[in-house]
């Protein structure tokens, strides 16, 4: 998946300006990169990721530019050169500095050569660049080389280039390269990358969920692939996570990646297999979708009736796929609770999954389950949960095929909804991941009971306030008061309305049901690393910091807590400790 650019996948192109562009790799099309030019997708298809290309100028009669692969040595050349310079300069600089008493002037070598300049003599005058804009435009039209020539000419025409300090010279070169170099780098699409791209475009849509937080959430929610050899014979459920995702699918994608259910195919193709594939692709011609790399293992079905159902209804094109009912996997699943009628997972299309017409070969087809809050909390009022009338086979045979198809589709849809709703309401989830703008108290009130003991809870918020309030519901004082009050997980059935309301007000959530609650934030700070010029980057994106609340679901002891409280109030709070 991530070793080579495959057909119809989304890739990210990084441009010299540092901007990102997402493109879908459709063969025999051109990818335009604005002022940097355009190139044919066929020139990157089948090639490895992380390579940098230079767009060459079109030759006469050609419709497309050719690409030149820029080797790593060339990409690193500049940094290495400055490293060399620094290594050479180091000794001389030292002696020169000593000679001049370390005064910050131009540093002159023993033989009078200038080793390091200061900005004492810098003249702030745009006219020092002798090339006019028109002339630069002329150069660009003439289209010599790949931008390198232009940069070289610009540098040569700068009157005072040799007056620049090495720092400002480096900056100048970088600035010009960004503007004129016609290069791009092909990067694979993955949730970390998507977070980065989306942060620059529509940060609000992903709740400003940064890559740092993705890693942290996955760890604290203990999200991982599930495979239990003991359960293989039974279709016992395992490795189920509950997710509430208002980030348009980014969070879902990130968790799915950790579970190994995001990419259409596991990367098990060995080199020899790869050769085979290529042969077969070559004979298929270029317009066909390469069959093998896109086809994940075709799952077998356990349910014979399901199979029958599928074959009777499906059209020939879809025939092979309908064997597996969607959202049916027992293990390694994500169950998404959504507030609207349909889940909002638009970003998953970057990973080849469209919730409106899910590809049956995509692992998310069976491993991602979706249901609305209505289905969860009040299935009886959800029309999708109501069983459509069952029609006998004889009667069905008399129907027209279209009507029959609709009937089966309805039945299948109902079966899916019922299966997902029932198993979700049954609970026993291994973890809960939340990123939502909804009030968290209500979200947790309905989801915590669905978790097994020891399950991990991770709640993300771009702002700290909602999580501070959540932390407060589990504060040490509140826990102590709850225990001393002799409350248990549910209000006592004998309590009257006022007492119940008061309890609800004092303890909106059972403060003993989550252990080890903590609130944290993490942020990466990037550095520039060059000899003598190592420092953190000067600017970074501001905006929401991003915070994570986490805890462990536990089952408090019922009953005796009250009695103990009378004997050692203080000690119990200390001893109970985790408040």
């Amino acid at each position, binding site marked *: 998946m991530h070793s080579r650019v495959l057909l119809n996948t989304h890739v990210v192109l990084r441009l010299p300006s540092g901007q990102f*562009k997402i493109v879908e790799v459709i063969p025999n099309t051109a990818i335009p990169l604005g002022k940097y030019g355009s190139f044919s997708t066929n020139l990157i298809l089948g090639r*490895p990721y992380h390579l940098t290309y230079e767009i060459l100028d079109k030759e006469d009669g050609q419709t497309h530019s050719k690409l030149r692969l820029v080797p790593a040595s060339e990409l690193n050349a500049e940094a290495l050169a400055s490293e060399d310079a620094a*290594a050479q300069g180091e000794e001389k600089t030292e002696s020169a500095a000593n000679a001049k008493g370390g005064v910050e002037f131009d540093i002159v070598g023993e033989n009078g050569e200038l080793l390091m300049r200061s900005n004492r003599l810098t003249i702030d005058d745009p006219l020092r660049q002798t090339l006019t804009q028109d002339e630069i435009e002329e150069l660009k039209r003439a289209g010599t080389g790949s931008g390198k020539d232009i940069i070289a000419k610009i540098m040569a025409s700068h009157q005072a280039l040799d007056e620049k300090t090495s720092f400002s010279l480096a900056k100048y070169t970088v600035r010009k390269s960004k503007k004129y170099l016609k290069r791009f780098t092909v990067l694979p699409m993955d949730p970390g990358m998507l977070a980065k791209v989306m942060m620059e475009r529509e940060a609000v849509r992903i709740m400003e969920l940064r890559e740092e937080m993705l890693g*942290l959430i996955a760890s604290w929610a203990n999200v991982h692939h599930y495979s239990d*050899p*003991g359960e293989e014979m039974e279709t016992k459920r395992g490795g189920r996570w509950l997710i509430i995702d208002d980030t348009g699918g980014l969070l879902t994608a990130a968790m799915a990646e*950790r579970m190994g259910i995001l990419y259409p195919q596991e990367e098990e193709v060995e080199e020899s297999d790869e050769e085979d594939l290529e042969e077969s692709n070559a004979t298929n011609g270029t317009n066909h979708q390469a069959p093998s790399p896109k086809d994940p293992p075709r799952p077998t079905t356990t349910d014979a009736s399901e199979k029958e159902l599928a074959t009777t209804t499906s059209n020939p094109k879809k025939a092979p796929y309908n064997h597996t009912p969607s959202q049916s996997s027992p293990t390694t699943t994500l169950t998404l609770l959504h507030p609207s009628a349909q889940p909002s997972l638009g970003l998953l299309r970057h990973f080849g999954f469209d919730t409106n017409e899910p590809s049956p070969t995509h692992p998310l087809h*069976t491993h991602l389950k979706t249901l609305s809050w209505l289905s969860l909390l009040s299935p009886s009022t959800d029309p999708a949960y109501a069983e459509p009338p069952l029609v006998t086979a004889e009667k069905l045979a008399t129907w027209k095929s279209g009507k029959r198809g609709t009937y089966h589709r309805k039945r299948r849809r109902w079966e899916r909804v019922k299966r997902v709703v029932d198993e979700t309401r049954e609970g026993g989830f291994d973890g809960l991941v939340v990123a939502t703008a909804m009030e968290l108290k209500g979200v947790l009130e309905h989801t915590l009971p669905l978790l097994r003991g020891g399950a991990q809870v991770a709640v993300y918020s771009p702002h700290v306030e909602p999580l501070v309030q959540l932390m407060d519901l589990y504060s040490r004082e509140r826990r102590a008061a709850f225990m001393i009050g002799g409350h248990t997980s549910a209000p006592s059935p004998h309590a009257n309305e006022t007492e119940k309301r008061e309890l609800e007000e004092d303890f909106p959530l059972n403060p003993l049901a989550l*252990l080890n609650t903590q609130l944290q934030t993490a942020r990466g700070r990037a550095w520039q690393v060059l000899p003598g010029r190592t420092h953190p980057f000067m600017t970074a994106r501001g905006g929401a910091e991003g915070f994570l609340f986490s805890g462990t679901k536990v089952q408090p002891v019922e009953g005796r807590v009250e009695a103990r409280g009378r004997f050692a109030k203080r000690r119990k709070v200390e001893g109970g400790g985790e408040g």
Partner: protein
Amino acid sequence: MYPRGHSLKDLVRTSPFLNPPPKATPDSLALLGLRRDHFIPITLQDDGAAVTNTRFGSFPHQALLDLPWGTQVRAINVNASRSKKSKKQGGGKKRKRADDDDGDGNLREDDAGGEDGEGEDGHELASSGFVHLLPPTPETWTISLPHRTQVVYTPDYSYVLQRLRVRPGDTIIEAGAGSGSFTHASARAVFSGYPSQQASAKELENVENGIAGGDALPKKKKRKFGKVYSFEFHEPRVQVLRDEVKEHGLEEIVTVTHRDVYEDGFCIDEEVDGQPQPRANAIFLDLPAPWLALKHLTRSPPTSSQIRSSANSPMPVTESDKPFRTPLSPTKPVHICTFSPCIEQVTRTVSMLRQLGWIEIEMVELLHKRIDVKRERVGLQEEGLRGGNPMPKSVDEALGRLREQELRTRGFYERQKAKAEGKEDDDADAGAEAMEKELVKVEDGTGDAEGIESLLSKQQRMESNQSKAQERKIWKEGKLVHRTESELKTHTSYLTFATLPREWTEEDEKRVARKWPVKKQGGVENGDGGKRGRKGRGKEEAKLPEGGEDD
């Protein structure tokens, strides 16, 4: 109940980190949660004598076994239980609890009687103290593991694994295994099944769906199982880590090797599917001199021109007779992270990475903070209470107190005056009486507390506050505030990331170019204005980078 005695189950040993059984089982790792950041890892034993003692009491393993995870467990009075048990010819397997499955009702029944009631198994409950029984996770293990070296903590390892793009089925090299926290986290990240599971499952019919059913794949596409290859130079640590890995059921996923990786590199004599290992696509180096290990992490032998031995980084390219072998995956891009506390280490590592053709070199330092949340209670009513700030909460309250103090001072002077005039006895008595009355009012709750506060002594005020606090819901009062926790890790290490793309030769390029020739009239524009339908295209793709900047 957990299905036991299943044929596959017996063949494959699962890990409590990855497949925690629903309940605590013997010989499996469990954690006792004492309080936040304080866990005690224990291996449960089905043995009457096994007891774990904590500062919150003693916990015989018999009382923990078969409990569902997350259960709060009360301390047991061990000595009393012992004597009782011996009477009941104890020491055997606990008696089955009838209400095992529906949770917690049993305890209430058992100890309805007295303060030192009898819990399950005839254990006598201690009067106080409890723990929570938790399944292990890499996070809790990281907090509780026996320290051997500096530990890579959760914020760092989760970011590293995210940036290294470690996914189920991947192979990761870890050098400088240290205390094993990164080992456990990366084992969870790469886990995609137990290799012996596939072997054993061959005879059994596979009924699983989706990717979990790797056996449904065509024969030549065998599922690749995630692996962690861990290297450590310090032999005793290697042994301890090996034992841990075995005990934690991770031996099929983690291979620990004792090795000086600077000298001997990362290749090992283990084959999977006829391929020499590790064939890694992710590398984490927590070594004092990562640049010395980098020469072993290439796809082709490094040339001496690549490695320029400058004066300050002596690195002899050792010519060996052994044929070159790469520990890296030949097809996947390889991501690396080096973990170094000092900037000098970073400089040298980055320089070496550049020379060896690594790209996308980036150095990041991760700033992680944990945040404390509390309620800030301010006001005179807090005097004498814990956790409150006894300053006046507002200007009005301050004014009120000042006025009262003023009154009091005046009263004092008046009494002094009266005393001087020789009438002290009567007045003093009257004063004391008045004070008494006010106090009674306070205790009845009928008095105007605000009014008489200053008439009381400090001691009295505090006592009055304390008694009133019993009725207050202090957990709901005050202003909700947050701040960085008092103990802050301001620097752990610098994280240097880099990527080594797959090698791409002229021949490769020619082969692929034959397959995807660029046609002369390749007309359709991808990207903006494309003709492809809605599938896979949104406004993201439609947007063009704007040229923008001028100077």
